[in-house]
């Protein structure tokens, strides 16, 4: 989009953050979760980061650990009010929530978190346009930060992305000497840069600028190479396998380890299921809220009759995999996963999605090789 790239120096970034704070524009960025994180030699636990609204550059944790929760919370909060109600006379008055969200900007989003936004857009505008989601999306400008790859649990390149993917971003920062190379991908990104032009500097003309451009490309290439070794799957045959192995004994191997807590869904940038509850606030008034929910709990599908179509954790974990890698792709043309690896890192019992996908892909490869897609008996024999 931008005709030529710009540079955001470390000082420029600090100025930008302060300027946004002074203007009252929320700037969401990866920041240290605790005060201790900034200290040199801080323990791994102390170096936790989180996305939050920042007011100064000292809070920023760019290029540090992956934030604990994804960016999702700024578009689909853990709890949000759908409407308030109160009794007036003999009737009930409904008070809709405002959807006139003030403009906010995300600085330094992980590309895997930014990419989740257009993916979830599809379900949020499928049979019903979700006003709250859409209004927050419209009010938000997202600048991602090219990622240097967190660890071996990352697999963005196995789900059609890469560590510097532009998808879902209005602009991108890539680390170079002295700051970040800035590119814009949308009108929104362009407008943001234009509005804060004094924080950005032109790339040095000639060789100096080229050096920085080469540095940026080198950073991205190194990251691409680093993540590519973590996982590679063939989504076509993976889908075929999932489609034909609903009752495969494979699933019974995944359920026992799973606690059924849904931490994976909480930390996931693409999991978007919610529960709707009514809460009284006093006599004659209350609110209807929606709260994060997860298919991993036993009550998610529990019927009022007591019947539960997903009776055990084997079925619930299968649902997690099938929704992300079979149902959503068939319905919306996108895998419901950006390979951030948070589920694997956060899982208290070591359930590992990359490992599971590799396992299924290997089974699918055997099926495909044997020409036995759809023949469950043969597939099971081959797999065991």
């Amino acid at each position, binding site marked *: 989009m931008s005709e030529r790239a710009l540079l955001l120096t470390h000082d420029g970034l600090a100025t930008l953050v302060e300027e946004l704070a002074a203007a009252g524009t929320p700037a969401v960025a990866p920041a240290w979760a605790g005060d201790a994180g900034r200290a040199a030699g801080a323990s791994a636990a102390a170096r936790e980061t989180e996305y939050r609204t920042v007011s100064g550059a000292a809070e920023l944790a760019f290029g540090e650990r992956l934030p604990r929760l994804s960016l999702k919370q700024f578009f689909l909060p853990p709890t949000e009010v759908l409407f*308030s109600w109160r*009794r*007036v006379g003999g009737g009930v008055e409904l*008070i*809709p929530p*405002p959807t*006139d969200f003030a403009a906010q900007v995300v600085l330094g989003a992980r590309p895997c978190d930014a990419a989740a936004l257009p993916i979830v857009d599809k379900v949020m505008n499928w049979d019903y346009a979700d006003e709250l989601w859409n209004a927050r999306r419209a009010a938000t400008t997202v600048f991602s930060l090219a990622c240097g790859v967190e660890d071996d649990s990352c697999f963005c390149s196995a789900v059609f992305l890469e560590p510097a993917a532009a998808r879902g971003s209005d602009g991108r920062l890539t680390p170079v000497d002295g700051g970040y190379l800035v590119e814009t991908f949308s009108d929104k990104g362009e407008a943001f840069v234009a509005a804060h032009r004094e924080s950005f500097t032109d790339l040095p003309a000639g060789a100096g600028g080229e050096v920085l451009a080469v540095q940026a490309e080198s950073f991205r290439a190194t990251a691409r190479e680093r993540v590519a070794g973590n996982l590679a799957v063939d989504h076509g045959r993976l889908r075929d396998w999932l489609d034909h192995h609903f009752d495969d004994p494979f699933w019974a191997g995944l359920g026992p380890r799973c606690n059924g807590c849904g931490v994976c869904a909480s930390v996931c940038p693409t999991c978007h299921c919610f529960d709707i509850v009514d809460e009284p606030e006093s*006599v004659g*008034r209350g609110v209807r809220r929606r709260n994060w929910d997860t298919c991993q709990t036993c009550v998610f599908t529990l019927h009022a009759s007591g019947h539960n179509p997903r009776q055990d954790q084997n079925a619930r974990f299968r649902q997690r995999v099938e929704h992300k890698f079979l149902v959503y792709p068939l319905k919306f043309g996108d895998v419901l996963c950006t390979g951030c690896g948070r589920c694997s890192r956060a899982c208290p019992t070591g359930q590992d999605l990359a490992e599971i996908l590799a396992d299924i892909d290997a089974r699918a490869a055997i099926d495909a090789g044997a020409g036995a897609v759809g023949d469950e008996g043969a597939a099971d024999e081959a797999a065991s």
Partner: protein
Amino acid sequence: MSVVNQPQRSGERAPDDSGRATAEFEPRITAFVCNWCTYTGADLAGTSRLHMASNVRIIRLPCTGRIDHVFIVKAFERGADGVIVSGCHPADCHYTAGNYHARRRFGVFRELLSFLGVDPERLTFSWVSASEGGKWADVVNETIERVRRLGPFDSYHGLAGAATPADDPFARFEMPAGATGGTAAAPADGHDAASQAPSGTGDAS
């Protein structure tokens, strides 16, 4: 569902309770009492025309053993500034041991609440028998004086409002102060929330 039926208050209140000066603050107290001893004792206090403050709303239960800790939590959520739990003296329980079980549970729960920052002064546990109308009046009056000194428990009542200040449209409206009269019928002050809403929430009016 409202667990706590709030007392009527006189005068104007600030929309969020924060303007309630301690001097004119009338605590809202919820009392969970056992049917056999304290409820009868409270009845006796009434029929004996003992003088006591009217801030307490009594919820009668079969036994202190039936009083779950979530009742206390719900009372604070719904606007109580203090809570009384009262039942039969030891060895007097209609069900033999309900009060002994309650004593263990509340011994622990009181410490737990305190550890999470709820001042134990907001809680009163007492044994009041059917013949102790005078003691009930004392328990009520002392509890009210204690809670009056502590002030309104706005920090707890406002917890949900603090969750999502920017995103929560309800935060723009009146928090549940509870002065909606003694009945569950439609409040006469039903329009106060709209009148308190800042401009820009045109949907409310």
